[in-house]
């Protein structure tokens, strides 16, 4: 009616002249919150209100006039690629000029993905980084214009995080990664980011370094924001990830690291939206919350009758009921409110449905009770079943008079026998749990070999497994004629007690504070990482060593970058050493490796020459060795380590670096002359000739100087 919108349309056309906007979609989140279903389908293809999650994200990007989209795929990459290839986004009428799935199969964390993005050189300008499970109706244009202003105003600006104002215990707010943001009141500059510590952990408070608050007149601490992981970034962001190879997570590593780093001196801002809707589906609890939000039209115009998939035909009826064409409802069934029903679904007599989503081709029998449940395409619920707060995945069958209690997740193709009662928070999958979790971790973790076809791999191994055990179900769980096994949560511990992974979350009755529901991500991730590596490559002490060196290198690098004091770094290293039960040899090795890496970084980025870089790094940090090197043998060992490591770095400067490192160690009295000679003349050292040439002269000089000294001494005498 009002032609004011014509302005908007011309605005859209103008965008062609502006530099194109790119988007990186992280389709994998490297978490196992949706296990066991994610073992078969990637998270971003799970349906929310009968639309795959990725559609919501792509729709948002289309709305924001993004022209190039890169989907970074890791687990189930083939499925995602196939989906995108067949979707409307790949047609020539697609709003994106380019949409590309990028296989980043080796990546194990968001950090790896970003490093991959950087090394592939995909980013040419400012870009939007978004995870593949965002549901939002946000108009990004305002945020982008603010981003541009900030970019002009602040030279150290690198990113804007988009946050949605909500409240602490909101149903769409994550309870897995709750975090508080400290923002400058005037500019919305993010000063500090802190995950809310777990109640189980020793920490129950947030420590704020007073330094971070310097320079801002007023600041606010907010714990009421939904962090939907939509960031507008400058091209510097991927390279920061590249430089800091230990960054794994977008928030707890990257944001926190950048904000607390003295070296980087970069600024991250926040953009807080109040009117728009934005949330991320990252757990069963948010899945439920966001589904209900979409049905109740909080995310308007992203509602089911928007018919995002071309073959959908939803129409709206009062009380938030959405039906597709060709739905058969019996006369006596009761569809109460907040219900979505897909096409060709049949609902029987006397059935009562409330606050639920039912997919396509579902068959719901007579006298069934469905309450706040999610029935995916093709599932069958027979007569007399009671399903509450549960998820029944595609093509599963729940036979007569079975009962699913709160929080049950029935996996793909599972069959639940008659009269079976599934207890609270039970997850059931078709194929045995052990086997499946292994294979998913394999595919999830890395795919050195032929993991391009995970599925076939899975199938084979499953077949084997079934063949070996000759049983297809666990009668105690699914009943005599059922199909399926109990899935046990990987991280099934006391943290789960608060209902993180389940869809039941009757918070009012639980009456817990935010802090108590929170679980620290860090704890999770470390455990997870350990687990995955061990599953991949066996479980011997070698792995512990490897694990240690990785961790230790990361620790030292962090110390180097953030300029920690030496005592802290030492303490961390020592703790690590004790916990992993390794010798000082490994500690020295790790320290050397980290220092050399730092030197290498300086040289490669051409900030410093070989001499200055080595001098700077080793002078500042060689006191570390004072507490790692105790006797003569240790000194020889240290030198040997240094030589070995140096011989393996870049040939163009390795001998120089080695020489200067040696000089510094000598000057700082970490190693004594005798031990230098001992090492120099040892067989092992002679074998690594490449780095010896430059050092040789110095050794000669040292020997001469010593003999001179000796002479002088003799003369003096």
């Amino acid at each position, binding site marked *: *009616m009002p032609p004011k919108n014509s302005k908007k349309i011309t605005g859209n056309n103008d965008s062609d002249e502006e530099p194109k906007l790119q988007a990186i979609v992280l389709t994998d989140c490297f978490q196992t919150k949706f296990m066991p279903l994610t073992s078969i389908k990637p998270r971003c293809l799970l349906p929310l209100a009968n639309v795959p999650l990725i559609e919501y994200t792509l729709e948002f990007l289309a709305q924001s006039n993004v022209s190039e989209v890169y989907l970074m795929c890791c687990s189930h990459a083939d499925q995602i690629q196939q989906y995108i290839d067949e979707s409307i986004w790949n047609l020539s009428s697609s709003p994106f000029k380019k949409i590309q799935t990028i296989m980043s199969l080796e990546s194990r964390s968001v950090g790896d993905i970003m490093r991959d993005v950087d090394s592939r050189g995909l980013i040419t300008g400012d870009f939007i980084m978004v995870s593949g499970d965002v549901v939002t109706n946000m108009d990004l244009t305002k945020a982008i214009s603010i981003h541009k202003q900030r970019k002009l105003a602040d030279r150290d600006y690198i990113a804007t995080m988009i946050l949605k104002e909500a409240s602490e215990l909101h149903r769409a707010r994550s309870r897995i990664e709750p975090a508080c943001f400290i923002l400058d009141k005037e500019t919305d500059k993010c000063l500090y980011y802190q995950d809310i510590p777990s109640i189980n952990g020793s920490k129950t408070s947030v420590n704020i370094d007073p330094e971070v608050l310097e320079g801002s007149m007023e600041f606010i601490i907010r714990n009421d924001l939904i962090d939907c992981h939509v960031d507008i970034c400058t091209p510097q962001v991927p390279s920061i990830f590249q430089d800091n190879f230990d960054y794994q997570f977008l928030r707890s590593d990257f944001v926190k690291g950048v904000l607390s780093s003295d070296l980087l001196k970069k600024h991250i801002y926040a953009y807080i939206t109040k*009117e728009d809707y934005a949330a991320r589906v990252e757990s069963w609890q948010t899945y439920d919350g966001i589904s209900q*939000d979409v049905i109740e039209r*909080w995310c*308007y115009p992203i509602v089911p009758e928007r018919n995002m998939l071309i073959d959908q035909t939803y*129409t709206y*009826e*009062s009380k938030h009921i959405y039906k597709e064409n060709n739905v058969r409802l019996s006369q006596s069934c009761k569809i109460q409110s*907040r219900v979505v029903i897909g096409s060709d679904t049949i609902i029987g007599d006397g059935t009562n449905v409330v606050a639920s989503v039912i997919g396509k081709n579902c068959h719901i029998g007579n006298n069934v009770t469905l309450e706040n449940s999610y029935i995916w395409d093709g599932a069958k619920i027979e007569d007399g079943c009671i399903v509450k707060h549960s998820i029944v995945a595609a093509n599963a069958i729940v036979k007569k008079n079975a009962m699913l209690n709160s929080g049950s997740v029935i996996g793909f193709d599972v069959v639940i026998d008659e009269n079976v009662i599934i207890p609270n928070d039970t997850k059931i999958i078709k194929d045995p749990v052990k086997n499946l979790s292994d294979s998913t971790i394999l595919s999830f973790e890395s795919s050195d070999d032929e993991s391009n076809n995970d599925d076939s791999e899975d199938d084979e191994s499953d077949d084997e497994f079934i063949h070996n055990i000759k049983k297809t179900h666990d009668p105690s769980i699914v009943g005599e004629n059922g199909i399926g096994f109990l899935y046990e949560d990987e991280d099934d511990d006391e943290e789960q007690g608060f209902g993180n992974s389940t869809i039941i979350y009757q918070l009012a009755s639980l009456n817990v504070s935010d802090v108590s529901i929170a679980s620290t991500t860090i704890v999770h991730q470390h455990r997870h990482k350990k687990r995955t590596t061990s599953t991949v490559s066996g479980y011997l002490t070698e792995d512990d060593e490897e694990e240690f060196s990785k961790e230790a290198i990361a620790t030292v690098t962090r110390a180097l970058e953030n300029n920690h004091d030496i005592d802290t770094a030492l303490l961390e290293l020592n703790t690590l050493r004790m916990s992993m039960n390794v010798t000082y040899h490994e500690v020295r090795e790790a320290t050397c490796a980290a220092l050399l890496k730092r030197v290498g970084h300086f040289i490669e980025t051409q900030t410093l020459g070989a001499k200055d870089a080595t001098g700077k790094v080793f002078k500042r940090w060689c006191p570390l060795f004072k507490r790692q090197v105790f006797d003569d043998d240790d000194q020889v060992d240290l030198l040997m380590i240094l030589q070995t490591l140096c011989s393996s770095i870049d040939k163009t400067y390795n001998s120089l670096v080695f020489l200067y490192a040696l000089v510094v160690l000598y000057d700082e009295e970490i190693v004594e002359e005798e031990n230098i000679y001992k090492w120099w003349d040892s067989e092992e050292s002679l074998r690594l000739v490449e780095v010896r040439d430059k050092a040789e002269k110095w050794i000669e000089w040292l020997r001469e100087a010593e003999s001179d000294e000796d002479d002088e001494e003799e003369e003096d005498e």
Partner: protein
Amino acid sequence: MSASAVAATQKFEILVDSFISKLKRRQITGSFSVATETCHLLMRVISNSRWTNTDEFIQLIRGVGQRLIQAQPREFAAGNIVRRVLAIIRDEVNDSTPSQIALSNNAPLNTSMFQLLSTNTTTKTTSKETTKAQNQDLRSVVIQGIRELIDEIASVHENIELMTVDLIHDNEILLTPTPGSQTVLNFLLKASLKRKFTVLITESYPNDIEECHKFAKTLAEAQIETVIIPDSTVFAVMSRVGKVLIGARSVFANGGCVTAAGVATVCECAKEHRTPVFAVAGLYKFSPTYPFDRDSLIEVGNSGKVLPYEDSDLVGKCEVTNPLFDYVLPEMIDIYITNIGGFSPNFIYRIVLDNYKNEDVHLD
């Protein structure tokens, strides 16, 4: 030849698909811009389309119309424009056959009545015999027709404004419950040049409150005495109101219309007080369909406008519905003011018949 044909159909698909996704994404909203954009789309579609006879041509445009309506069933303007274009095509096809020319020349007043009663078999038999040259002519004539349609849409406001002086008297109090309507705004602004009057505007919380404030500001800047009143006081002030002025989103063949939520209540109040209700609407908002299923006409909007989403104590625990539109019955409206004159709601069916062909009322 075949390669270029494929390329043409491809281009055609791209045009339609991207328009549909824009409609769905609401990058094009509001009757005015939807109408204009649909015209432009059809122009491009027609110049890119390939067909051998007029039947095929008509089917093609009908297909496009069907898809547009499916994409956004409540943007009635898109469907209306497609039907208008279809009418242009059918007129042209009929005119090009001599018998039809004779008929229409002899009895121009009878045409619509005649078409009402006659079946469309004649058009079908004649259309098959068209030649390529004729097709080219038809194409250019239709495109010319669409250009005229665009001009018509662009000049809707001016034509409506011509009637202001006759309708508004000095020192009158007007009430408008649709501050989102650009047509009403232009109407009032134009009237203020000749007349001095007061305008009451309903607050229209929550969906149109921002528009309401902008609307009031524009009027106040034009030296019109402007008062914003809460929606709840409409009945109380109605006794002093001289005329109620509403903007319609879409007008149906029975004379009823879809407009902003809250207007139906205002019209009820006006009826109680025997206050005349004027609806303003451009011709492109007139739809030849009948509003059988009234619930399906009403869009339900963002719940967040009614209850702030931040309120986690209430979100999810109470049901919130926020309808954006109202259906207003024909007997509630006294006169429709359009760019082709003022009409009683009873007469709308006739205007619809003049502008649309009967066979195009239902595109599927």
